[in-house]
């Protein structure tokens, strides 16, 4: 039984834990030099902050995950610094690259993909300026490096991460110039009741908001971001408030993020079909409630399998491993399986409410100015994409071929969501109808001499 787990974040750690418990020794791969994933990412050697300072309310979780991670490493074939850049599903082979240099092929009978997520963005005029980062990036900078992307950043977006990042910056001594939320209070309040399915998390979110207010951080709801100003770096953000009054807020950096999108490129290469999830406004790889994909031997867990947050990642990682064990007729913990299924059902209700309370502003993306770079890799404007639509591109991959949107080195990770909104509006169809950018190997650039 050759089991491979890709990813050592919360989902990967809990998946490996169940495999090892059942006597399986998986190959365990992570692209980073250490496990922990993003939310419980560990700084490099030499940093001294303790878990409380690093992870705040998640410090207990971080300690538990790291202890499990460290205990599991010697009981697996642990391969850090290793990128899986291609999958040949017909041969059940992964192509890996270690330390950017050592090429390998890894055989699997069963594969659990726990590949995580990244920020979903809204391109704005000026968003390619130095000093503009993703919200998650701003958080990683502080968590893993102890630096702020600026001393007076403006944070734009929506969702709990917006408030959390702002508060973390304020606590670390930065002075956020403003927190600009594109969602109106009514929408948040409307779906607040659904978030009672996870009361502690709801209370934490409300606590973040209250603490920001107490610290005097300026919070604005229902705003429209207009442009980021600067020449060689960010100097201000132009935005419009709920009453359509325009503001210019001086700042030295901008962090932007509207929820997360799955890093599901490997699931795509493994042959897993995708469905559009209208609640989370993301394309997600298909799986059953246990994490089985329709492709035999391929299992999915964590945010890479559809955004669920860290609780779902831990539960789903364990659940997918138990599904793998059951399918392989190996001993699996039935009581735990039932417990996880119950918890996951509850969490799904919470998550649905959360996603609706903090929606991606597709309407703003769809209406972005012709001159705005929707694709920052290749610097393709929304106008160029609209011209491609006019030249008979009924879906994203055709539009990519015509306009080069999504053809750059990030492979559409950033522009995929907003470009689909632009294309759909231009074609006067719903967003799911324009499809999604297909994953292509290598999922991240690898040196040419490393490609056979």
């Amino acid at each position: 039984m050759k089991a491979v787990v890709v990813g050592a974040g919360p989902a990967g750690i809990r998946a490996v834990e169940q495999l090892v418990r059942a006597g399986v020794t998986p190959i365990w791969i992570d692209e980073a030099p250490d496990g922990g994933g993003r939310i419980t990412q560990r700084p490099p050697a030499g940093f001294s902050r303790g878990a409380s300072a690093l992870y705040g309310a998640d410090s207990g979780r971080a300690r538990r995950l790291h202890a499990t991670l460290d205990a599991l490493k010697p009981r697996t074939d642990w391969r850090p610094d290793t990128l899986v850049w291609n999958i040949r599903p017909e041969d059940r082979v992964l192509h890996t690259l270690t330390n950017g240099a050592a090429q390998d092929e890894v055989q699997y009978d069963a594969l659990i993909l726990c590949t995580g997520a990244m920020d979903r963005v809204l391109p704005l005029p000026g968003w390619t300026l130095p000093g503009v980062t993703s919200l998650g990036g701003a958080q990683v900078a502080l968590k893993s490096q102890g630096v702020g992307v600026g001393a007076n950043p403006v944070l734009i977006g929506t969702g709990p991460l917006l408030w959390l990042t702002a508060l973390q910056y304020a606590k670390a001594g930065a002075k956020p110039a403003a927190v600009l939320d594109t969602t109106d209070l009514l929408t948040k309040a409307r779906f607040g009741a659904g978030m009672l399915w996870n009361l502690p998390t709801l209370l934490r979110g409300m606590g973040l908001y209250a603490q920001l207010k107490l610290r005097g951080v300026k919070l604005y709801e229902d705003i429209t971001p207009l442009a980021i100003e600067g020449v060689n770096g960010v100097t201000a953000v132009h935005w419009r408030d709920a009453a359509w009054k325009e503001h210019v807020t001086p700042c030295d950096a901008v962090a932007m993020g509207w929820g997360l999108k799955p890093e599901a490129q490997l699931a795509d290469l493994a042959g897993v079909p995708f469905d559009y999830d209208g609640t989370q406004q993301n394309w997600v790889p298909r799986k059953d409630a246990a994490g089985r994909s329709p492709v035999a031997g391929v299992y999915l867990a964590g945010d890479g399998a559809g955004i669920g947050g860290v609780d779902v990642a831990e539960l789903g990682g364990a659940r997918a491993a138990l599904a793998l064990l059951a399918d392989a007729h190996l001993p699996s913990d039935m009581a735990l399986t039932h417990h996880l299924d119950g918890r996951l059902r509850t969490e799904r209700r919470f998550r649905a409410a959360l996603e609706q309370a903090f929606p991606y502003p597709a309407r703003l993306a769809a209406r972005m100015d012709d001159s705005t770079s929707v694709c920052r890799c290749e610097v393709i404007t929304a106008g160029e994409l609209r011209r491609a639509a006019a030249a008979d591109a009924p879906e994203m991959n055709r539009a990519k071929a015509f306009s080069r949107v999504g053809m750059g080195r990030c492979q559409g990770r950033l522009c995929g969501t907003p470009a689909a909104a632009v294309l759909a509006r231009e074609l006067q169809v719903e967003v799911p109808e324009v499809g999604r950018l297909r994953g292509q190997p290598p999922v991240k650039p690898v040196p040419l001499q490393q490609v056979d």
Partner: protein
Amino acid sequence: MTATRLVDQDRPALIFRVDGVEVPAKQGDTLLTAMLTAGLGHVRTSEFGDGGRAGFCWMGACQDCWVVVAGQGVRRACTTLVEPGIEVIRR
């Protein structure tokens, strides 16, 4: 842009070089952190004439912080730790 050192900065200092010029850094910095906190402003120049870039995602996904490290080739500045004496070339 100038990234700002906020917390956990009591680490040994070191020197590396960017485009031939000595730049101070701290052990445990990524190249991105070191270059941006040193005030270099950007880590690469866009091939499409729209100016400097200083990364975006800080987590190895967007590929917008590529630099050349002598002897290693193209590296993401956000996922590469600085080492004493290494030579970084901006493109």
